[in-house]
């Protein structure tokens, strides 16, 4: 087998191997290089896989040459390759951005540990995307979760410990629910391979254990993706984690849970079970709307910017789930596109905030007053990302909103159209609180001398900010992949 054929497994194994290497090196510079190289490799491999899948269809890989469904199968299709590119790309960007921020926020002696855990977390997230085996997905989910708990606890504030503990409890409950769901599926079908479960599903469709499995998986994954009202762990975790961790998590962690949900809903259980036998269409619709409005409204009243944008993330998750609840190709396209668009927008925001934290010593609204005076580039970047959150045309957020509104129109639900656009007005309010603080006030006397973040941070963050504009105008990659993946998920030929 050539190296290219090994890519599906290498994309997860290389970061996995980088973790112990970083641990054993015990040197922060070497550890950084190793993990950065691993992330870069993963990104390269993901892009190659994406091209391969786009060109010649899904790639299947039998671990240890045990043929599926007996062995573990790694399977990369349009959806998986799209998520691979997103997660590995964000990892590489965040890592290359985060050195200066890390120096300031985590004691130097712990850096190699940070890189180790980061590599593990990345392994977990990428593994989830490539794996075609239910239990293997659970294992990767736990790898990423456990490493995330530790990463959050590395925040210099002691409240990070509480946030991490809180997430640990909630996350473990979620993981337990997920494993119960997978167990029930195994019980009913006798297999763990996703495609195989799907093939055997018609025989047991609608039976109580299968529906129970669906319910457990729904709740467990909703917890992991911080779907309102199961989001309580998220604001604290994002606020108190080190900036690097917040940036990475905001861009990837919850999004991968959406990926798992999509897989289980549309491939394993099938729409008829999810949306007809259980009223999940209505449930998801209500939770999405509640999240869009409640979380965005809460965001308006936050004074800590990391917390403000964390609540905004909960609200944006509402859009993602809303698209799913339409159960149409357009709706699912909106979901998948928004996962990507929101990931780059929020990733950029948290990276910019990391720069602000470094220069101004914190990101509370009173402290960032006059930001535009001392850090003009960062402030401008925040404005652009804010516009993307609002969904102004020419930004990535607009593309997502376009598809959401279109999906609502196709479903003949005019009232939903107005709720979607109405909730973006809440985004206008919370974004403009930040803009007014940054542009309409003089900097605090002790912060007048603050300077723009170092170039090593500005460039990767700037790349992402440019990305939010680029992907708002050139959507061949995002919408193309998403629409393709959505029609595959729904079994609709394009």
């Amino acid at each position, binding site marked *: 087998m050539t190296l290219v054929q090994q890519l599906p497994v290498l994309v997860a194994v290389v970061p996995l191997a980088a973790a112990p290497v970083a641990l054993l090196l015990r040197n922060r510079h070497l550890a950084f290089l190793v993990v950065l190289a691993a992330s870069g490799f993963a990104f390269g491999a993901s892009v190659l896989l994406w091209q391969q899948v786009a060109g010649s269809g899904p790639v299947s890989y039998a671990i240890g040459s045990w043929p599926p469904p007996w062995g573990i199968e790694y399977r990369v299709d349009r959806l998986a390759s799209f998520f691979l590119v997103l997660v590995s790309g964000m990892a590489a960007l965040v890592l290359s951005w985060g050195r200066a921020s890390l120096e300031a926020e985590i004691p130097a002696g712990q850096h190699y540990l940070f890189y180790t855990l980061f590599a593990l977390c990345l392994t977990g997230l990428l593994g989830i995307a490539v794996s075609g085996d239910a239990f293997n997905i659970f294992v990767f989910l736990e790898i990423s979760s456990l490493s995330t708990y530790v990463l959050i606890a590395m925040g210099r504030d002691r409240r990070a410990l509480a946030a991490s503990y809180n997430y640990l409890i909630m996350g473990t409950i979620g993981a337990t629910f997920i494993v119960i769901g997978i167990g029930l599926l195994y019980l009913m079908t006798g297999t763990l391979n996703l495609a195989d479960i799907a093939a055997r599903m018609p025989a047991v469709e609608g039976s109580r254990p299968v529906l129970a499995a669906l319910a457990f998986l729904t709740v467990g994954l909703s917890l992991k993706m911080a779907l309102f009202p199961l989001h309580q762990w998220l604001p604290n975790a994002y606020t108190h984690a080190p900036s690097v961790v917040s940036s990475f998590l905001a861009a990837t962690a919850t999004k991968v849970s959406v990926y798992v949900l999509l897989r289980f809903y549309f491939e394993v259980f099938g729409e008829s079970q999810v949306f007809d036998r259980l009223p999940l269409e209505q449930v998801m619709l209500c939770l999405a709307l509640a999240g869009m409005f409640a979380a965005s409204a809460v965001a308006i009243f936050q004074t800590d910017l990391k917390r403000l944008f964390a609540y905004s993330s909960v609200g944006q998750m509402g859009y993602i789930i809303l698209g799913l609840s339409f159960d149409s190709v357009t709706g699912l396209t909106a979901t998948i596109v928004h996962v990507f668009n929101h990931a780059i927008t929020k990733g950029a925001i948290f990276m910019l905030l990391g720069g602000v934290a470094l220069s101004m010593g914190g990101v509370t609204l009173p402290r960032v007053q006059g930001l535009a005076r001392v850090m003009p580039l960062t402030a401008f970047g925040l404005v652009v990302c804010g*516009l993307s959150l*609002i*969904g*102004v*045309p*020419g930004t990535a957020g607009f*593309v997502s*909103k*376009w598809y959401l*509104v*279109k999906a609502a*129109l*196709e479903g003949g639900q*005019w009232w939903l*159209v*107005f709720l979607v*656009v*109405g909730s*973006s*007005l809440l985004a*206008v309010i919370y974004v*403009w609180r930040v803009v*007014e603080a940054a*542009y*309409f006030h003089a900097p605090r006397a002790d912060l007048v001398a603050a300077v723009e973040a170092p170039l090593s941070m500005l460039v990767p963050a700037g790349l992402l900010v440019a990305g939010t504009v680029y992907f*708002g*105008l*050139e*959507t061949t990659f995002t*919408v193309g992949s998403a629409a393709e993946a959505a029609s595959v998920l729904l079994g609709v030929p394009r």
Partner: protein
Amino acid sequence: MIGVGQLVLAALLVPTCGAGLIALCHRTPDLRDAVTVATAGLLLWIVAALLPGVLAGDRPALALITVLPGLDLALEVESFGMLFALLASGLWLVTSLYSIGYLRANHELRQTRFHACFALALAATTGLAFAGNLFTLFLFYELLTLVTYPLVTHHGGDEARRAGRTYLGLLMGTSIMLLLPAVVFIAAVAGTTDFRPGGILAGRVDGVALAGLLALCVFGIGKAALMPVHRWLPAAMVAPAPVSALLHAVAVVKAGVFSVVKVLVFTFGIEPLAAAGGSDWLVYVAGFTIMAASLVALNADNLKRRLAYSTVSQLSYVIMSAALLAPLSLIAAVLHIAAHALGKITLFFAAGAIYTASHKTEVSQLDGIGRRMPWTMGAFAVGALSMIGLPPAAGFVSKWYMLSGAMSGPSISGTQWVAVAVIVGSTLLNAGYFLPIIFRAFFRLPVAGDVPAHGEAPWPMVIALTTTATGTILLFFMPGVPLALARQMLGGG
């Protein structure tokens, strides 16, 4: 030799790059101001170079990017957009001269940001004027809101911030809440958002749905300041006078009514709308706005506030005429965009000149000011005549067409009679709130113990306002080009 397509693109890029250059020259104010004037001149030259072709029937088009399937970022210069771009770029040149005088005389801060944002606003306006489809128009519309926000809040105080909230909240709120769903809906049913003669909705949407969709568009375009979404315009008067002059008499508000007329003619189509009676309601809403805003203006003592409400009412003349859908009223709508732009910019220039020379802002303070500032108040009188619609000012021409349009057709319907009544009644109101100012300025004696004697404002400002006043009169005698462009719009594009 540059192709016509590149020329269209250059009309967007020149002010954008100009803004960058202006920002780079922030250390040398003289150079920066020279760059501003040069950029404005270059833009006018480019736009003017497009005019002969368009008059001859060319429609230079340029597709930039396909954002989503069926959704292109595309430019196309047709006659109506040509007129608007010509108006905006021509008046920008005059305004840039005026702003330099105004900003320096009033020792304004952040002049670089001001000039740079102004250039960006013009880039957005040109893009909007040359938009080849509704999506492109929507994009530049939002962009225009965003780049003018720093201009409205230029002073940076609490009052400016509050006004900025109203400005942004109303303009962005309406466009996202109402216009965006309408655009998505139009794209979904028509499969395109292209502007085409005769519209793209014929046979696809009709009856009440058509009227509803029109309502989404018209109220979604908050810049047209139709009541009840007009509040941003008086709020925006906290901005420095040049901003009120160019943006809130020409670029921004005209972008609003331009978009309304454009959507009416090229997206909905005149014939389908007329057949469905889909725009009758709009005549009443616009008529109400004309009367109500005139009444508010009658009672406003602050000069800029009075002018702002006068603008609200004048904008609705355009909307009302367009909504009547008769060929003559559509010509009136187009002509009035030009006539009102010239007249109102003169009035705002004068208000700014009065403020600069004497720091007076209220109408009641203006006793005898015409003797100290004869040029300024002379220009003001010309502008006021144009607002009322008296010869020899441009407003007379558009009002003539407006009345002719309202009374055209085989039989005059009730809606048309309402329009006629509104035009006549509001003309009286216009006279009622403009003539007293002229009377005060020229025929009353200055109050004793008034502020120290002053003369005219700095010369660049006086030149600017006499230029636009002259333009107002010239347009009365030579309405040829706008008239030709307006006729072309009706003649199938």
